[in-house]
């Protein structure tokens, strides 16, 4: 397992339709280099699981070709693809013990008995379940079952491992712990991992790159920090992290900057991301933690707002404000211990830098 290397995956204009009337996956082009941890992130029905199932071989692509290490695999049956897979509900065989579950992929590959035992034990040790080989899956906790599923997907040294929302059934604490464990296993083994989830923190925590899916199309494919800092469109901005949106109209464009007039007449400067011309409708996207109460005149944008609600959350305070007619405007204030006096009903000035405010496509 230690010398295993990852496989390269390539989707080449892949389309998928179930009913011949609508496309679930619309023209997917995706290159996954060897050893990458790539997450397909998106709401349910966005086509991410279908993409995974096509790669695993359980769904045929309606059009296009998928390559595994430059070999087209559209006509290769699932059992010959040599791809490890972790299923949403683990799919551990209930009538076999944990060790038998792990030995299964080795048995069907006719691995010699002694080697089987050795590999099973090594895989169990890897997920710290060395003593649990004789248990039935039903006798394990959810987290342990999860680890067995991961070990089973890795025991036959696949170059590529697919994970279909593997942590969905676990509680929050366990999920976070497993995120790190899976990440470390990936780092140690160097296999390529394609991971499907609808949980954005999971995607940000674990991935090298994240492909955000919506409506059968990859909306953005980038590293987690790029995804958060530079969303390419409103969907990504909304889906990743918390976000204030202000809708308005572009009144001026100057290089990478643009001037936007909100519906109530307020004019704001913003980073121009995907607006093309003066007069376009746009949605401004602004992260709550980038809004400052300590304003100074050199700030690009300064606006007055009324404080509607204060929520104390320990490490920070959430302030819900009415800014430019939007009363869902959230500001996160770090709790520095100085007990800054904010009062509901007060009108205060807030400000932010131009680069923190992204002018994106308009959403309805």
């Amino acid at each position: 397992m230690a010398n295993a290397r990852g496989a390269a995956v390539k989707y080449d204009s892949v389309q998928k339709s179930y009913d011949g009337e609508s496309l679930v996956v619309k023209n997917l082009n995706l290159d996954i280099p060897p050893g990458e941890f790539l997450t397909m992130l998106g709401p349910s029905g966005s086509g991410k699981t279908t993409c995974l199932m096509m790669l695993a071989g359980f769904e045929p692509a309606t059009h296009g070709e998928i390559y595994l290490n430059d070999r087209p695999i559209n006509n290769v049956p699932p059992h010959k693809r040599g791809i490890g897979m972790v299923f949403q509900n683990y799919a551990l065989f209930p009538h076999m013990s944990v060790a038998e579950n792990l030995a299964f992929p080795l048995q069907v590959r006719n691995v010699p008995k002694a080697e089987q035992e050795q590999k099973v034990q090594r895989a169990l040790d890897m997920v710290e379940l060395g003593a649990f080989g004789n248990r039935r899956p039903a006798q394990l906790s959810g987290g342990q079952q999860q680890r067995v599923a991961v070990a089973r997907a890795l025991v036959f040294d696949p170059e590529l491992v697919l994970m279909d929302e593997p942590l969905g059934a676990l509680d929050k604490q366990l999920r976070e712990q497993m995120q790190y464990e899976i990440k470390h296993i990936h780092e140690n083994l160097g296999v390529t991992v394609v991971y499907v989830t609808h949980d954005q923190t999971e995607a940000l925590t674990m991935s090298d790159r994240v492909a955000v899916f919506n409506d059968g199309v990859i909306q953005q494919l980038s590293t987690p920090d790029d995804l958060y800092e530079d969303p390419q469109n409103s969907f990504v901005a909304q889906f990743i992290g918390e976000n204030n949106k202000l809708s308005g109209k572009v009144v001026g464009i100057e290089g990478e900057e643009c001037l936007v007039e909100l519906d109530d007449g307020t004019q704001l400067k913003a980073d121009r991301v995907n607006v093309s011309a003066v007069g376009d409708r746009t949605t401004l996207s602004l992260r709550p933690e980038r809004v400052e109460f300590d304003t100074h005149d050199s700030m690009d944008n300064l606006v007055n707002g009324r404080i509607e609600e204060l929520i104390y959350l320990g490490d920070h305070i959430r302030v819900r404000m009415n800014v430019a007619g939007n009363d869902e405007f959230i500001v996160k204030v770090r709790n520095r211990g100085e007990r800054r006096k904010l009062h509901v009903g007060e009108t205060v000035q807030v400000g932010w830098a131009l680069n923190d405010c992204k002018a994106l496509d308009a959403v309805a």
Partner: protein
Amino acid sequence: MSDTTDGQVLTTQDGKPLKAALRRALRREKLRAFLLIAPLLIFVLITFVAPIVDMLFRSVENGIVADTLPKTVIELSKWDPASGEAPDEVVFAALYDDMVIAVDQKTHTRLGSRLNYEQSGISSLFRKTGRRIKRMDEDGPFKDQFIGADKKWGDVATWQVLQQFSPRYTDGYFLNAFDAKRGAEGIEMKPEDQQIYMFLFGRTLFLSIVITLSCLLLGYPIAFLLASLPLRTSNLLMILVLLPFWTSLLVRTSAWKVLLQQQGVINDFLVWTRLIDDAGRLVMINNQTGTIIAMTHILLPFMILPLYSVMKTISPSYVRAAKSLGANDWTAFWRVYFPQSVPGIGAGAILVFILSIGYYITPELVGGTSGIFISNRIAYHISSSLNWGLAASLGTLLLVAVLVLFVVYDKIVGIDNVKLG
């Protein structure tokens, strides 16, 4: 967590034992639950448990000799059949007294038919004697008069039967059911040509196993298909599976007669296609083949339904997981899917087997002589020969056989491995 230390009893706030308080709180609920099931419980007791107990009792009950000939039975107990001679005058005197009363109450013919099961000819002996009894001299000697009425009264064998069936309880029916009888030297098997029940039991078991296996072979793929198709299609197919259920059993069985008989549809078709010639028409009905075909058809839904409900719960991700781990279609099915469907096979097989082992109507209609079951023989004894005792003991044996198989199944497969849904 718990306040109890050893020997201390938990109490409620006002000092009553906690357990008693809990019982009182639950009593109302228990009573309610009981009242809800009471109608069914009474119904089952009256219509199911009581007849079965009565049947079990009838298989050993034998009060008729002692009730009809009370004095004779007492006197006869002193007689030793090994002496080789008929009993002496005292017994005959007692017999005369008993017979006078029996003839008066017309119970002697019933006793005659009862003992006729054990030895043919006794029925006519009692009827004949009944007609002569009024003409006999009341003062005796009775022995000569009885032997004069019918020579059989002088036979040791007649008296042996009477003595053997004097007790109120008998194992005679069961011996009969086992093809055995009580001879001069204890229990012995009947002559070969009279042995029938053990053979019939064997055939019933054999045919039931064949029917169960063919139901499984035919039903498993259908259940598999039903469980893997989308709901709308599988519902339509399910109706087709259930359709025979909604058709009368007699209609279905008669349909098989039309299809399978020598001048029937299948034979005609085979002759028409020249696969067989007219002289070589297949005999497919009124024999074992007919029974197997018709009963497999009738019992098939009982196999499909439990299989389907178990297969429905097997997530398709198991087979997918097996394939992703490198198993081909067959290995994925055989090592992963099939073991998980075993509880359904168990449930279906038990259901079909137990239903078929006691099946009556279909073998009766299409079984001929070589395809009838033990239950047909039981029905014959209930309704034609009126030997209810024998019918009861055969029924008891059938019940015991099923229970034994059940226990064996539990030992091998485990009854908790059976799932109906």
